[in-house]
């Protein structure tokens, strides 16, 4: 191993001649002196610089890099003349590749907009394709029950529905309670405390029940559908199914979507009941209303139409959550990081969709009444 003192200086001799400058490098041209070498080579020149390496004892990769770099940058020209065996060895040991062009050049604003528009168009087309395939396969499975994967359906129903009972009940209970408290605070001022029952019942059954259930299901099950399908996509399991002649839509998508459509209205009904119960507790223990009076008032406030609108919302939410989860799952190309990204994107998209759809249905039902 060659040791070079840190204080080493570059040994050289610079000669000017009619054909340009000649730089004679001497001794050990290694890392400690490369900075000096690079600075020397970077000095602006007007004529060709010829490097004489015949007195070089040893050269290392840093020195080679400095020479190649100077060669690339030189305006007036740079060329290597005579070489010593040591220099020649170093210079033949390393190869200078063709500079790779950076893979993506930055796009202009308009190019970026155009590309984004094309991406969006392709995404919409893909989404509609998957939605159409899944819906068609679902109808086919309902018409021909033999094509339904009953085991998977039951498993999914259990996962999406039964295992969500506690969290849905807890959250909607608290929401019902909160709504009732807020209402009580206002209505007490007018001595109209009994109307807390109306307000809680209507807002829970029409809005809060379906909405909170949908948001919880999107967070729990929409994300898990996206993550599961995405992982299967990444680990070639979906390709595996296709090659075995098993339609992944029928095998994976339909049971999940049907389970969502079955379970969501049920969860919503639970949410409605528990939410009203939260309001009931506020009415009875905080406002000192008679329990029977609260229930009677709540039931007269509700119309059968409210239950219908709640169920329609629940079904629409379920369909959207399922399709969005599937779409983001199937879209994954690449590795593990992409799975995480798409899962997050699917939850954001689901919740966005739920809010928009809820708003739309509320307006439509308001007009219908």
């Amino acid at each position, binding site marked *: 191993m060659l040791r070079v003192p840190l204080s080493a200086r570059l040994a050289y001799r610079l000669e000017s001649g009619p054909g340009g400058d000649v730089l004679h490098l001497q001794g050990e041209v290694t890392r400690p002196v490369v900075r000096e070498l690079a600075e020397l080579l970077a000095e602006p020149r007007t004529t060709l610089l010829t490097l004489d390496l015949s007195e070089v004892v040893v050269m290392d990769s840093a020195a080679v890099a400095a020479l190649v770099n100077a060669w690339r940058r030189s*305006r007036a020209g*740079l*060329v290597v003349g005579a070489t010593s065996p040591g220099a020649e060895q170093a210079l033949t040991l390393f190869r200078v*590749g*063709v500079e790779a062009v950076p893979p993506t050049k930055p796009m202009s604003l308009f190019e970026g907009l155009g590309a984004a528009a094309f991406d969006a168009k392709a995404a919409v087309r893909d989404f509609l394709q998957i939605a159409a395939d899944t819906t068609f396969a679902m109808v086919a499975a309902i018409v021909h029950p033999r094509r339904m994967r009953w085991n998977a359906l039951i498993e999914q129903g259990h996962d999406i529905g039964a295992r969500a009972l506690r969290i849905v009940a807890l959250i909607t209970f608290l929401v019902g309670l909160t709504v009732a408290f807020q209402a009580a605070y206002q209505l007490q001022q007018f001595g109209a405390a009994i109307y807390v029952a109306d307000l809680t019942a209507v807002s829970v059954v029409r809005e809060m029940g379906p909405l909170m259930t949908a948001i919880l299901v999107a967070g729990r099950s929409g994300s898990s559908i996206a993550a599961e399908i995405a992982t299967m996509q990444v680990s*070639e399991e979906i390709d*595996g199914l296709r090659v*075995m002649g098993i339609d992944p839509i029928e095998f994976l998508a339909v049971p999940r979507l049907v389970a969502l459509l079955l379970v969501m209205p049920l969860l919503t009904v639970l949410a409605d009941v528990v939410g009203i119960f939260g309001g009931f507790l506020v009415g009875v223990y905080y406002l000192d209303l008679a329990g029977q009076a609260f229930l009677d008032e709540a039931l007269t406030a509700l119309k059968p139409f409210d239950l219908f609108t709640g169920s329609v919302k629940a079904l629409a939410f379920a369909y959207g959550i399922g399709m969005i989860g599937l779409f983001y799952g199937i879209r994954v190309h690449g590795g593990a990081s992409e799975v995480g990204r798409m899962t997050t994107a699917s939850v954001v998209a689901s919740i966005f969709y739920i809010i928009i759809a809820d708003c739309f249905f509320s307006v439509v039902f308001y007009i219908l009444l």
Partner: protein
Amino acid sequence: MTASEALVVRGLVARYGEQTVLDGVDLEVRRGEVRVVLGGSGSGKSTLLKHCIGLLSPSQGDVWLLGQPLHGLEGAERIAVLQRIGVLFQSGALLGSLSVRENVALPLREHTDLPEGVIGELVSLKLEVVELSHAAHQLPSELSGGMRKRAALARAMALDPDVLFCDEPSAGLDPLTSAELDELLLRLRDRFGMTIVVVTHELMSIDRIADRVLLLSGGKAIADGTLEEVKSSDHPEIRAYFRRIAAGEMRGSATALTVLRQASR
């Protein structure tokens, strides 16, 4: 084409956007042979495989699988052809939520009307062939790399395929396990008369298993023949491949000295 060929690929061109991945590739696989498609990363060998098993449709050219034009078929006919092939994916592609037994039983449940008892028996037979009976009830995540490959092999063989495609069978396996897998493949060929197509970059195992080799490079077939024929070729890229010389040595780049000898500018 004749009945002695299990797979015929003619003038296959594959493009992703503007990038041409395969540029006019021909491949014939005779029945009962072990055909190796050899190539480095990015040579297009995985794309070729995906066309042969129907996961991708060619931009140009045709694929005949067992005498049928794969990409002209739809619905039940297509599934019927696909049922006559088995695919051993690089990662196994076993369903992570099902045990080894259930994974092997899956194609049988999906595509046959065999009674449950027969399916169970058949699964046991296949697991015995790949010597995995002891791990039948384990989940894929509980298996070692070699066991996972064997389980995937058992599933690929569930429907007694005529052609077995293997994508990088030795990827991720130690040399010994990989050699065992090679022996297993040869045994399947000999015992069941299976046609086997192996796509790989591994030179180590092809000496043992390959009847004929197709060497892909840059989306083109640069050699096709028996291993001896291919190895004795003078083509610089082929020689480089078998001598394991880095591609950089082959094309483009020059030594620093050559570059510096030319005056810049």
